[in-house]
């Protein structure tokens, strides 16, 4: 970063302030009362009518300097809509977005000079080679020809892409293509990285490359990362703080450990039946109302005592004959999500 004179004064937050006055200087991105609705769509042949949808409904957030901040929620929760407003791609109906002291609602074009964005689509880069995709992106991010080439080589080396640098993105596997797009996002350093499901389709090696690259940028110049994910395992391992989003609202915001502590009195028991659940067993008939059923799978959140009793019941007698598999685990963010009243866990992924 060069020198600059832009004012970094925080907008005075309304009652919903998320961060205390003392921490305010550390806030990189402040979102207040953000509202965005999509207009109703009239039905056409083959396309049903859609009512007006409120994709973001009064969202307030503070992202602090140097943290990996996550937006977790199932598909359709409003995460991408929120990110599109944070990256200047969409104007909110109401509310404010302040990024490094710049009002992005008034000046959406400034977002591109403050952050690097990795979207879900790679259409713009698909027919380029990995090297040219990275270099062109660097050039368009304002680097000179030589600087763009140097940055390209460094990033490709860092992510282990040098060997496939000459291949078009189109010809790569989904995970490799995603990694190449991530490389393009890193060329031309920005203090803020906005990554929309960056590791989709990646193997563990590529995932590790992504998170080490992120860590290096945090260590080197305190880069801040805003991560969109619906993968709870990833959320638990890489995020410093996470905002859980459902129906366009932030339903919780804390560290993953802090969120999990809210359901620490419970454990999760997952039962998979061979065919149907043996409801003739009285203990199971009793458990049935508490179970979230999807196909042959039952998901239960129970106190440790009740879980122990349930395990005893299913691992002995007639129930055991009907049982295909079971797991007993401490709560994950998925359980937090369900406990907070989120919709069915279908939208969240564990891998």
């Amino acid at each position, binding site marked *: *970063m*060069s*020198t*600059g*004179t*832009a*004012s*970094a004064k925080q907008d005075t937050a309304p009652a919903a302030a998320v961060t205390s006055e003392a921490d305010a*200087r550390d806030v*990189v991105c402040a979102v207040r009362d953000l509202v965005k609705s999509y207009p109703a769509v009239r039905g056409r042949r083959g396309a049903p009518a859609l009512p007006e949808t409120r994709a973001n409904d009064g969202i307030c957030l503070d992202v602090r*300097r140097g943290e990996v901040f996550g937006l977790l929620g199932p598909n359709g929760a409003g995460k991408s809509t929120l990110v*599109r407003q944070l*990256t*200047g*791609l*969409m*104007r909110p109906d109401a509310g404010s977005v302040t990024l*490094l*002291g*710049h009002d992005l609602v008034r000046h*959406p*074009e*400034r*977002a*591109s*000079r*403050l*952050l*690097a*964005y990795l*979207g*879900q*689509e*790679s*259409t*713009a*880069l698909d*027919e*380029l*080679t990995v090297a*040219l*995709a990275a*270099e*062109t*992106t660097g*050039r*368009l*991010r*304002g680097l*000179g*020809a030589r600087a763009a080439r140097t940055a390209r080589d460094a990033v490709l080396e860092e992510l282990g892409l040098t060997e496939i640098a000459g291949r*078009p993105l*189109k010809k790569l596997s989904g995970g490799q293509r995603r990694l190449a797009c991530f490389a393009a996002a890193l060329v*031309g350093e*920005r*203090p803020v990285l906005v990554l929309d499901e960056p590791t989709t389709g990646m193997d563990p090696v590529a995932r590790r490359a992504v998170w080490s690259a992120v860590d290096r940028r945090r260590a080197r110049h305190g880069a801040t990362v805003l991560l969109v994910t619906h993968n709870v395992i990833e959320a638990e391992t890489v995020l410093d703080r996470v905002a859980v989003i459902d129906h366009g609202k932030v339903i919780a915001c804390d560290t993953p450990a802090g969120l999990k502590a809210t359901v620490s009195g419970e454990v999760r028991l997952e039962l998979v039946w061979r065919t149907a659940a043996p409801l003739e067993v009285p203990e199971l008939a009793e458990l049935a109302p508490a179970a979230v059923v999807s196909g042959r799978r039952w998901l239960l959140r129970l106190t440790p005592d009740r879980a122990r009793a349930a395990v005893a019941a299913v691992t002995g007698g007639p129930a055991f004959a009907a049982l295909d598999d079971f797991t007993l685990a401490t709560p994950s963010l998925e359980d937090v999500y369900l406990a907070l009243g989120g919709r069915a866990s279908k939208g969240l992924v564990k891998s």
Partner: protein
Amino acid sequence: MTTAVTAGALAPRARFFPALAAVYRAQLSRARVARIPLLFVATFQSVGIMILMRGVVDGGSEARAVVAGSSVLVVAFVALNLLAQYFGQLRAGGGLDHYATLPVPPASVVLGAAAAYASFTVPGTLVTAGFGCVLFGLPMGGLWILGAVVPLAGAALAGLGAALGLLAPRQELATLAGQLGMSAALLLGVLPPERMPDVIVWTRDLLPSTYGVEAFARTFAPDPDWTAVLFDLGVCGAVGVLSLAVATWAYRRAAVR
């Protein structure tokens, strides 16, 4: 507060010409991967049309119109039709987000893509024009005018293609608009105007490719009317400036919703 002040500094914007050059280079490289078969199609289509028309026209001004029309048709195929499809696809697939989240002037993206597509047409146009001259026994000395016709007609048609692609509400409509534009250029540009009814001739005058065809056809005459040629090229240039400006506006509109 010092840290906050430095952190708030805005990174520089990409400058217009370097950004245009980067987009142009990237688009040209796409040709190697995706566009070469289509360039062959464009050329064969025009060559085929000339062979068909050879049985219908009997030399003179009609032959000039056919050769000029077929050559400019290559430009219409690539610059109008394919560019409309490209921008339609880019917009539908979320590809514009990539450019919209980079500090690049919209005009660099639109002009870079348009210039690349206009460049794709050069080999096909030259082959078509050369083949046509041989086929109809026309002089090849005037082919240098293609050096002006291709960029100017290319600008007009690529601007139109980009605008159609970016303004079409759905990807299929962008494709349809591109195809229709090319069909119009084919029917109204290749067929000699002497045999058309008045209404069609007026429509023909509304199509920017017509002026490229006319300028090129005039130069085959033993003593070309250079004022008319310049006027035709001027119309192409003016339409090019206008349509590229509209396309740039459409890009801004499509990028931020």
